[in-house]
């Protein structure tokens, strides 16, 4: 391995893991002084086309509290057919099937290149995937029409044996029975009444069959599909029915008087969806897909009243503690989310409306269950349509890029303990010897449940070094972590992916350089950002910023090279050089700044931030800016106002938006129509280039970004202007005296000012 960069990249490609530190400080005290915790970003289902799953089951350590999986790091005694667990040092006998094992005849899991390996489990009944559509009918006619079409389209994308169900809601909630011929049946619930799971199941008539089932327990798995057959049907059976049913969906018929919002019972609808699945298919992969076109306005989980004159809560209201429904609603959805998670189902939220839809309150449904959250202006936009379509894309094997009901089990060697995880997961509350008492993110457990995940779902997992300073680890010692992910593959198989990684320990006092060099500032930035965002969910914004700042300053103090009290002397090594800049943009990002964002938007952004992998997360923190000009090929440029030049076209990718910005001159040229003139074909190509690149990004990304095509002076240029570093503002424009770049009308500090302050604070001995 030539450089740490390559090492990091290689590890990421193989294991889907990025550590903040790739050489670990060997004592607890030193580790805390490193400021950035030892942590990693784990993409449990990272796509590995080169990794065919093995068709057998993993070999587990026999110690009941350990149960680690046999891995390449284990010491194996081929003669005695024994292996030693590298986590608990338990010596284990190989199972009989491994009788022929030898140095030359190793099972895959012992080979170093299989530090990540996937097992396929044949046992157990395979239950089909379940898709339960929960559809809001309080939509405008064209919106509803578009949504209906999307839904109908999605039927063609689902696996034919998948079970599908349909719940529609408005003022009432209707659970549609799909099996019937002729007359279409649905069970209707009042939208204002909170029902317990038991009540819901009683009312849907789901409890009766349970009685005979208990008597005939052995037959239970077989009977399962029939239990709920009325509401969840194999797609191939009711394809036509359902298509018709969707086609006939009408807008909620209850009159909405002037000055009122339609009554929308999202809370009850979700509750019923959850209850339905809970009663019929617990612990099987199921996806509840909530399509909503506005805020819940009645019943449990209502976010705003139906009086239009009272607007939906804003950040301002929340700060003033003036959002009267928020707490109750949040509690309702949290309760649902937890139940859903406990059953291994996930909830997607597709919210398309011009105003807020209550994502703030509902966010936990998606966040805790690993569901998707999609926000758009209307169902009748390509943004929604394509995003939705993209959910059903398939991988190289022709399998859906989705997995269900995963549990992530983390095992560590003794020097480490698990502090917590941040990502689309819930704690399974499994206490074990390797669980730290200090929590970062969702802690107190070594197992998490991730009910829905896809190949990019990424968790931040935080560790604590517990090795005491006075118990040094022998030179060359390695710490190991094993991630065991049980999940239901989209092909309905149960699978287990095991990733075992090891890193060197280093004494921070003597080998600080090593540790420093092995710092992964990108991963660190994302991991810190996740911590910050996690805190921001529960704390006041300024506190989080202060905390971030302090961490940054401490990090600079620790790893910077400088003379005391001399800001000018401050230097950071290469492995740290970008980190302050990430932090600068993070501070300005919508994840921590709520200004100009609605609570829903904040929730939406944070949701995605907490589940995307490193690359995407970085884009979110610090958008990428490409510049197109006649002067050469497109090049990435600084996210800085100075990059905004008249003769350039800029393409900015913030993950959520793709902005194409034509500089002043370019815009004028285009207006003059040069692109249509044959002699200026190159201009046409120039104009086309960013469009093509944007298209490429649009194709690949989920959720589909908002696509913005603007030009100098255009109103939409604000998307760009608000992101770039305001190096030129109305305050310093003339001071700089340059013609280049565009001034930004803002009082925000620029990166330069930020860095100056940072240097000053870092070198100050006062801190």
């Amino acid at each position, binding site marked *: 391995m030539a450089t740490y960069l390559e090492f990091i990249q290689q590890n990421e490609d193989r294991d889907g893991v990025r550590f903040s530190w790739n050489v670990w400080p060997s004592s607890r005290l030193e580790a805390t002084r490193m400021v950035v915790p030892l942590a990693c970003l784990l993409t449990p289902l990272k796509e590995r086309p080169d990794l065919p799953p093995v068709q057998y089951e993993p070999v587990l350590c026999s110690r009941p509290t350990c149960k680690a999986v046999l891995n390449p790091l284990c010491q194996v005694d081929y003669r005695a057919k024994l292996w030693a667990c590298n986590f608990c040092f338990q010596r284990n006998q190989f199972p009989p099937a491994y009788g022929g094992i030898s140095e030359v005849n190793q099972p895959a899991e012992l080979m170093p290149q299989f530090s990540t390996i996937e097992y396929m489990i044949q046992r157990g009944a395979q239950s089909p995937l379940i898709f339960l559509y929960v559809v809001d009918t309080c939509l405008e006619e064209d919106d509803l029409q578009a949504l209906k079409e999307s839904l109908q389209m999605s039927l063609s994308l689902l696996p034919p044996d998948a079970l599908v169900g349909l719940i529609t809601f408005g003022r009432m909630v209707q659970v549609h029975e799909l099996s019937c011929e002729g*007359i279409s*049946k649905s*069970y209707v619930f*009042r939208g204002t009444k909170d*029902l317990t799971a038991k009540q819901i199941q009683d009312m849907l008539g789901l409890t009766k069959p349970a009685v005979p089932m208990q008597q005939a327990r052995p037959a239970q798995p077989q009977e399962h599909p029939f239990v709920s057959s009325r509401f969840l049907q194999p797609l191939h059976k009711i394809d036509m029915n359902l298509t018709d049913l969707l086609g006939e969906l009408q807008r909620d018929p209850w009159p909405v008087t002037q000055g009122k919002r339609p009554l929308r019972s999202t809370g009850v609808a979700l509750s019923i969806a959850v209850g339905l699945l809970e009663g019929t298919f617990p612990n099987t992969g199921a996806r509840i897909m909530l399509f909503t076109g506005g805020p819940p306005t009645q019943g449990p989980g209502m976010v705003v009243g139906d009086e239009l004159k009272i607007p939906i809560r804003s950040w301002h209201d929340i700060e003033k503690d003036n959002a009267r429904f928020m707490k109750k609603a949040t509690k309702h959805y949290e309760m649902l989310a937890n139940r859903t998670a406990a059953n291994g189902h996930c909830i997607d939220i597709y919210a398309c409306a011009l105003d807020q839809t209550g994502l703030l309150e509902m966010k936990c449904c998606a966040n805790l269950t690993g569901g998707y959250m999609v926000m758009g202006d209307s169902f009748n936009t390509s943004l929604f349509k394509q995003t939705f379509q993209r959910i059903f894309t398939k991988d190289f094997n022709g399998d859906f890029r989705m997995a269900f009901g995963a549990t992530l089990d983390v095992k560590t060697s003794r020097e480490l303990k698990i502090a917590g995880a941040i990502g689309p997961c819930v704690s399974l509350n499994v206490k074990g010897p390797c669980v730290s008492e200090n929590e970062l993110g969702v802690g107190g457990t070594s197992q998490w449940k991730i009910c829905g995940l896809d190949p990019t779902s990424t968790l931040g997992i935080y560790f604590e070094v517990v090795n005491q300073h006075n118990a040094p680890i022998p030179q060359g010692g390695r710490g190991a972590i094993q991630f065991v992910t049980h999940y239901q593959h989209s092909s309905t198989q149960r699978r287990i992916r095991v990733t075992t990684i090891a890193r060197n320990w280093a004494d921070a006092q003597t080998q600080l350089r090593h540790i420093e060099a092995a710092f992964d500032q990108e991963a660190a930035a994302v991991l810190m950002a996740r911590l910050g965002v996690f805190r921001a969910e529960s704390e006041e914004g300024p506190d989080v910023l202060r905390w971030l700042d302090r961490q940054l300053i401490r990090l600079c103090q620790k790893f910077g090279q400088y003379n005391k009290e001399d800001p000018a002397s401050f230097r950071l090594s290469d492995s740290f050089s970008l980190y302050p800049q990430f932090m600068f943009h993070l501070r300005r990002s919508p994840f921590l700044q709520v200004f100009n964002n609605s609570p829903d938007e904040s929730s939406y952004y944070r949701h995605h931030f907490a589940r995307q992998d490193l690359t995407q997360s970085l884009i979110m923190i610090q958008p990428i800016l490409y510049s197109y000009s006649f002067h050469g090929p497109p090049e990435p440029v600084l996210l800085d106002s100075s990059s905004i030049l008249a003769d350039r076209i800029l393409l900015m990718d913030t993950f959520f938006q793709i902005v194409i910005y034509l500089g002043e001159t370019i815009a004028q040229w285009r207006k003059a129509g040069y692109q249509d003139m044959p002699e200026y074909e190159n201009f046409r190509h120039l104009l086309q280039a960013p469009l093509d690149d944007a298209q490429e990004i649009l194709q690949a990304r989920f959720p589909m970004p908002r696509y913005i095509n603007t030009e100098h002076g255009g109103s939409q240029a604000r998307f760009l202007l608000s992101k770039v570093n305001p190096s030129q503002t109305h305050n310093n424009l003339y001071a700089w005296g340059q013609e280049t770049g565009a001034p930004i009308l803002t009082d925000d500090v620029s990166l330069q000012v930020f860095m100056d302050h940072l240097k000053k604070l870092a070198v100050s001995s006062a801190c």
Partner: protein
Amino acid sequence: MNVNQSIPPVPPFGQPQPVYPGYHQSSYSGQSGSTAPTIPYGAYNGPVPGYQQTPPQGISRAPPSSGAPPASTAQAACGQVAYGQFGQGDVQNGPSSAVQMQRLPGSQPFGSPLAPVGNQPAVLQPYGPPPTSAQVTAQLAGMQISSAVAPAPPSSELGYGPPTSLASASGSFPNSGLYGSYPQGQASPVSQAQGHPGIQTPQRSAPSQASSFTPPASGGPRLPSVTGPLLPGQGFGAPSVSQPNHVSSPPPQALPPGTQMTGLLGPPPPMHSPQQPGYQPQQNGSFGSARGPQPNYGSPYPAAPTFGSQPGLPQPLPPKRLDPDAIPSPIQVIEDDRNNRGTEPFVTGVRGQVPPLVTTNFLVKDQGNASPRYIRCTSYNIPCTSDMAKQAQVPLAAVIKPLARLPPDEASPYVVDHGESGPLRCNRCKAYMCPFMQFIEGGRRFQCCFCSCINDVPPQYFQHLDHTGKRVDAYDRPELSLGSYEFLATVDYCKNNKFPSPPAFIFMIDVSYNAIRTGLVRLLCEELKSLLDFLPREGGAEESAIRVGFVTYNKVLHFYNVKSSLAQPQMMVVSDVADMFVPLLDGFLVNVNESRAVITSLLDQIPEMFADTRETETVFVPVIQAGIEALKAAECAGKLFLFHTSLPIAEAPGKLKNRDDRKLINTDKEKTLFQPQTGAYQTLAKECVAQGCCIDLFLFPNQYVDVATLSVVPQLTGGSVYKYACFQVENDQERFLSDLRRNVQKVVAFDAVMRVRTSTGIRAVDFFGAFYMSNTTDVELAGLDGDKTVTVEFKHDDRLNEESGALLQCALLYTSCAGQRRLRIHNLALNCCTQLADLYRNCETDTLINYMAKFAYRGVLNSPVKAVRDTLITQCAQILACYRKNCASPSSAGQLILPECMKLLPVYLNCVLKSDVLQPGAEVTTDDRAYVRQLVTSMDVAETNVFFYPRLLPLTKSPIESTTEPPAVRASEERLSNGDIYLLENGLNLFLWVGASVQQGVVQSLFSVSSFSQITSGLSVLPVLDNPLSKKVQGLIDSLRAQRSRYMKLIVVKQEDKLEMLFKHFLVEDKSLSGGASYVDFLCHMHKEIRQLLS
């Protein structure tokens, strides 16, 4: 009293007069004051007491003045003159009475022969004739019934003969005749003011109608045999007397018995109260003398004890038993009334006329008072004071059927539109403009006839008055000239100040296992497909404005979206029965024509969808709640048709448990069987009423369903309950479908409020029927149809004035089935009297029974059944005792004397006492009792009449060719001949009884089998055969069914067959298995009670 009076006149005019005066004075006191009789007047002041005194004085009844309407004053004149007038009066009556005359003849079989002739000639008219029935009975002699008039028994004899002649002669007498009441009617014109006097007198005499029974002397043959009377005559004049004839008789008496009478008369003055005078004459009826009788009497009594034990069989032992033929016969009374009054239209222009019996077919001409089809009263002459009323114990009640259906030849009420200002009303009491309002000051103001408040006439309503003080447009305006009419209501009369939308019908069908298994659901769905074309529509509307909706349910509810734009209906299941709501808005209630295809498809599919249901549990309250919610959402009133099969035991509001416990019968806890199990049902009903949601409940129980509880909601919302126990399509389809059709098609009013206003002096205090009341005056009816009746009881709260009478105005505010808000007004004016005899002469027993049954049936909710029965008996005894004491001529205690108008009271009352509710037989289920109880609550007079005293029609007695209904026979086994076939109906049941020795030919032509033994017992359909007998019977059955609001299922019963027990239950004159007394026994018992009261 009447009786007495009548008599007096007869003999010596002069003499009688004295008596009268007393009367008059009392009544006229004020006016008469001036007159000579003065003294008496003075006495007046004191109401009753005064009377008594006066009489002695022998003041003549001036009343006579009858001549002039204003009479009152005139009357003062004097007796004799008066008499003369009287005569005149009669004459006057005569003319008007023409009708009466006719009746007379008809009145009684026997009377007819003789009477007709005599009477007619006699100007007298009415009087004469009336006698008939009474007499007859009298003759019966079992108990001799002597008409109160009781012109002496002898008279009776004479009476018969004489009546006619006499009548003619005396003229006046006739009047006095039986139907005093009639005369009155005629008289009325005159009378009003005081014409009464003149007329009245006669009438009064009429009262004599009372009939007295003496123990059976020798079993007289039947009534019909006029001859009978003669016999009685022998026995006693009594018989004849008894009857109205007396009237006639009186006169006659006057002649022959005259002696007696006179003698009596003489005495009377002295002793008795004024009434007495009249009485005495009767008594002279000396009925008492009716010698024979008394003795018998005694014997009967003893019999009484035996009472219970007595075998139903008529019995030979003459001494102990009364001859059934001798006691008043309902059949006879009905027949007489039919003959007397069925031919001429009943003109309502005159105050206080007693209408013909409900069993009589007659035409009504509305000339200012509501038709008796709308309102019937227990008495058309009510006592002026509450003391009198208390003394008489005759309940003052009106049976109101605001939306009664009229025969095709009577016009339904005109609709009056007073424009935006709405109907014209009195400012103070809010009474609506009616013919009794008095316009004054040249028409600029009017004085309210109810509260006397003077109101301005709004300019747009102004009209000049003619010389009589009548508005010149009186005859152009229904509200000024008719007793019944409608106003268009303005928006002020609407809920929420919004005109209502057309109402809706929601069909709610039980689809639990039972309903499916019996085939009910399939049958019903099939029927609905065509039935929906016949929803009620208003006037000439092309299609009904009523929208329909469908719900099926078992443990959960299924709503159906049948919007016309759908290809297939949509079903929406609501299982949240604890908190019911309606899951859809659009498409639930639809126009039948627009959504026909979808509805048809739905009705096709419902039976299929639930064909293999295993759900046996049902809910009930949530179903109705759903209906309410649906109507609420649609902002309209409406009706729910509930088809329900079982006790609602599913977990839901209103869940019931089986609490049927026969052990409770005859205990103090028996009442709990009639009370609802939980209060939830009442609460629910209240909500229904608030929304104008009427519930019709069709029950198809296999076992106990707790009708008492389930019927609470229909009952309080003005709905109906139908019960088809052990429903099977083959057997009950016809009945169910027919009921359903009729129910769906009938015109209904929704969201109604009824208010009964009265003129000062009386007040409506109690209401019976299917409705809800949230305060003490407004009767709230979520729905009201033409079969529903509200019985209203009145009490005095002040003294009434004879001159102004008493007025009733029943105003019904409702939403028509086309969604129009309207007010229907019925007005009725009654006479007031100061003499009890007037009261007794103007009573209607059928109405009385209607009231008493309802009163008793409500009583069982709160008191032990035994107490209720005792109350009834006591009240009845008091009524009759009061009559006996105050109105009948003195006679031996052994004689039972009944007022002519009430001579059927005992027999009818006995029927009420024996009814299933008050005296259940072993085979009567708790549900049946509760069912009947609630049915009776809203029955009208005609229904209660036949319900309590079933009609028994011999089919083979009359010639096949005759097209009329065969004359009924009395409901007693001894009237059945085993060679005949009979049809029995009581409004709910229809039996065909086949005697064991019926001719084979008859069997063949009716049943198409060769012998009696081959007839299937329990058969419910007769084969349709092409022979005259079969056609005739079928036709008769059809016509009987057509008369009743519910389809009567036919049951063929063979003599000596098991089923015969069931049949015998309806032979109400016999002793019943459950311990009910026979008519004869009960009569004796009654007599004993009365005697006790008198002594």
